[in-house]
């Protein structure tokens, strides 16, 4: 039962909005996220122009440096800071305000991560850490870069512990109740962040003595495997964050109700359980793993598609139900009844639509034979720009149009909503153009992670040029999108008219079935997750270590 104090806290929270201390925390995280978007976006444009052969980058800031910084800023800083800022606002809102010690942990985490990023960025700027954002050996950066990564991981752990303490405290005071759905999503995300970052921590602690020269060689395959155990988990952390808004926020924005609460929770813990060994589909062309083991891993990777298909079904069911209640008719006619002019709906909707080809492309890549065609080509880059750059980031943008004013006690004006709609259209067009061109030129053999070259005017390489031009066009549109988005966030945070904005959380259906209590037993979920990780990793790891090659010295290829 909830105590009277808790009930009072909940009521004050609802009446007065978020507590100022909690708002400052989330706003700080979001500001860093969007600053990273601005800088990372500019770097992205430089790369696009270079790949199209339109811009020569100077030798003191070369393509690979730009690529490393672009990747790190957007796939690490933007996503991590947004995720934490968003979920801490959700924890504060749904669990009656953050506990003082939790807030302190999140601030310590903020400081550690910022310190870590400064440490990591300095060697990148000095061209001493041009190892790309997938920083696995044999390329070796300056040790300072890896020290920075250690601080970042420690910072993330602080935030994870903060979330666990907050949720455990709420559960103790609300015995037998289900954790509110957004807090449940947050738990899943932070469980993944914590357990997923353990392998990368081990990897970094393997690399540090090697980059310092204390040991001569490193086991590359072990390091790569540890990296992807984390790398793939990170992908699904973004995805789970976006999905949380799809299930909980979008139905409220369109005036509908949530899809089954049980299904939502099942999707969350299935993603948590099956996620980490999915890292192997990033290594499907790697040597040292038997074909049969790869086959089993493909099966495991595709299993992650199941909760995604459940999500797709749930979302379209909610849309149809809501639109038909509003008078929508026909098989597709009800589409018109959806609020397309509302950026809080439009942006995540475009994100979901992008996930249809994005998910299909993902299935292509995790299929052994098909992967051989697209491996390390621009196809891959197209794939993750579609999934991360559209499905995840557009959802984040959509969230920002209500989350930022909610935090700053301001309102989204119709004018800014219009700007948001235009931003979404520009972003979708830019990313669409770029991603399609990347997929296509990848199929024609254009490699990823390669500065512009015609390979001595080789005919095949020259044939890529028209497609690569679209990268520049798409990149330019995206840059306009970045500027509009950053302007919108700054405006909503500091200049928009004062007022109250609601934290949109959809209710369950009135006749919803009761969610079974076993969904709350995280101890069991984590136990099964650990078993699945053991199942996935024991075979290749033993093989890599027992039959290890001599090992690799550090390489500096740039």
């Amino acid at each position, binding site marked *: 039962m909830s105590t009277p104090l808790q009930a009072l806290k909940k009521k004050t929270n609802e009446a007065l909005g978020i507590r100022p201390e909690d708002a400052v925390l989330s706003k700080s995280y979001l500001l860093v996220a969007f600053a990273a978007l601005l800088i990372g976006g500019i770097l992205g444009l430089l790369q696009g122009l270079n790949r199209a052969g339109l811009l020569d980058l100077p030798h003191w800031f070369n393509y690979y440096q730009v690529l490393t910084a672009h990747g790190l800023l957007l796939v690490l800083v933007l996503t991590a800071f947004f995720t934490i800022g968003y979920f801490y606002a959700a924890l504060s809102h749904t669990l009656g305000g953050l506990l003082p010690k939790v807030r302190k942990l999140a601030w310590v985490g903020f400081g550690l991560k910022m310190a870590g990023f400064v440490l990591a960025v300095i060697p990148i700027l000095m061209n001493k850490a041009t190892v790309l954002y997938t920083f696995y050996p044999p390329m070796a950066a300056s040790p300072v870069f890896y020290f920075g990564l250690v601080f970042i991981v420690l910072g993330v752990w602080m935030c994870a512990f903060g979330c666990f303490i907050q949720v455990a405290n709420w559960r103790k005071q609300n015995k037998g109740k289900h954790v509110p759905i957004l807090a449940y999503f947050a738990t899943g995300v932070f469980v993944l962040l914590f357990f997923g970052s353990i392998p990368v921590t081990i990897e970094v602690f393997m690399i540090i003595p090697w980059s310092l020269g204390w040991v001569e060689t490193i086991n590359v395959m072990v390091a790569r495997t540890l990296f992807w155990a984390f790398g793939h988990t990170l992908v699904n952390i973004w995805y789970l964050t976006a999905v949380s808004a799809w299930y909980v926020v979008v139905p409220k924005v369109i005036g509908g109700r949530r899809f089954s609460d049980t299904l939502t929770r099942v999707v969350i813990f299935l993603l948590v359980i099956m996620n980490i060994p999915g890292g192997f589909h990033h290594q499907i062309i790697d040597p040292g793993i038997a074909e049969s083991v790869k086959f089993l891993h493909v099966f495991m990777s595709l299993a992650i598609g199941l909760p995604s298909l459940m999500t797709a079904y749930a979302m379209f069911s909610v849309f149809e139900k809501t639109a038909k209640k509003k008078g929508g008719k026909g098989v597709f006619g009800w589409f018109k009844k959806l609020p397309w002019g509302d950026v809080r709906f439009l942006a995540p909707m475009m994100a979901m639509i992008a996930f249809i080809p994005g998910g299909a492309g993902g299935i292509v890549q995790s299929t052994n034979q098909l992967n051989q065609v697209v491996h390390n080509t621009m196809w891959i880059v197209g794939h993750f720009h579609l999934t991360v750059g559209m499905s995840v980031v557009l959802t984040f943008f959509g969230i920002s149009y209500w989350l930022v004013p909610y935090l700053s006690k301001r309102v989204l004006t119709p004018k800014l909503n219009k700007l948001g709609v235009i931003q979404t259209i520009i972003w979708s067009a830019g990313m669409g153009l770029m991603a399609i061109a990347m997929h296509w030129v990848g199929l024609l053999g254009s490699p990823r992670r390669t500065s512009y070259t015609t390979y001595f005017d080789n005919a095949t390489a020259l044939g890529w040029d028209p497609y690569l031009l679209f990268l520049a066009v798409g990149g330019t549109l995206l840059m306009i999108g970045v500027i509009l988005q950053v302007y919108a966030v700054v405006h909503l945070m500091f200049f928009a008219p004062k007022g109250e904005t609601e934290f949109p959380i959809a209710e369950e259906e009135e006749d919803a079935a009761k969610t079974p209590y076993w969904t709350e037993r995280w101890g069991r979920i984590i136990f099964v997750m650990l*078993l699945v990780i053991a199942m996935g990793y024991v075979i290749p790891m*033993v*093989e890599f270590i027992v039959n290890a090659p001599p090992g690799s010295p550090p390489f500096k290829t740039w």
Partner: protein
Amino acid sequence: MNQLIIGALLLLVLALPPVRHLLESIMIVHMHMQMPLLVVAGFLTAKYMQEKLPGFFKKWNRNGLPGILLFVIIMVYWTLPRTMDEALTVPAVEIFKYVSLPFLAGVPLRDSWKKLSVSGKNTVFTGFTMLFFGMGWLYIKSPEQLCNNYLLVEQLTLGWGFVTMAVCMVVYLVYKALVDPSEYE
């Protein structure tokens, strides 16, 4: 009825020759995936049997002890290296595997687990944790090939599979010991 169909289908799929060959071609997958899946298949069919033969289970497995004892015996039997070898070379033993794991391990496990007391459950869990550490130690430390059909490196992999599973079980036991559900539920 649903569970019966899923269980039967699972058993059928596991018995398909290509599936059987793939799963049996890797030592650890043979023991740690195929065999547990067979148990799961039996576990799923158990509900139907409980409904059809309530008297049988009531008479022979009143307090859950006979059932769990049968489960333990079957499971321990199939952790022995020699039994895997025989399953691969003697068809009768392979058939015995496909019968014993679902119906002599999976079915009694389901019927017994709910009848056991908390301490009974913890004893079984702790016993298996110790068994897994022991088997892990055996497979990792043995300098000889224990199965004629599998290479030494596969044996090592299986050993580490046992150890990592045992570690997971320890994590769970520690969680059970430290976290009091009545504080939350």
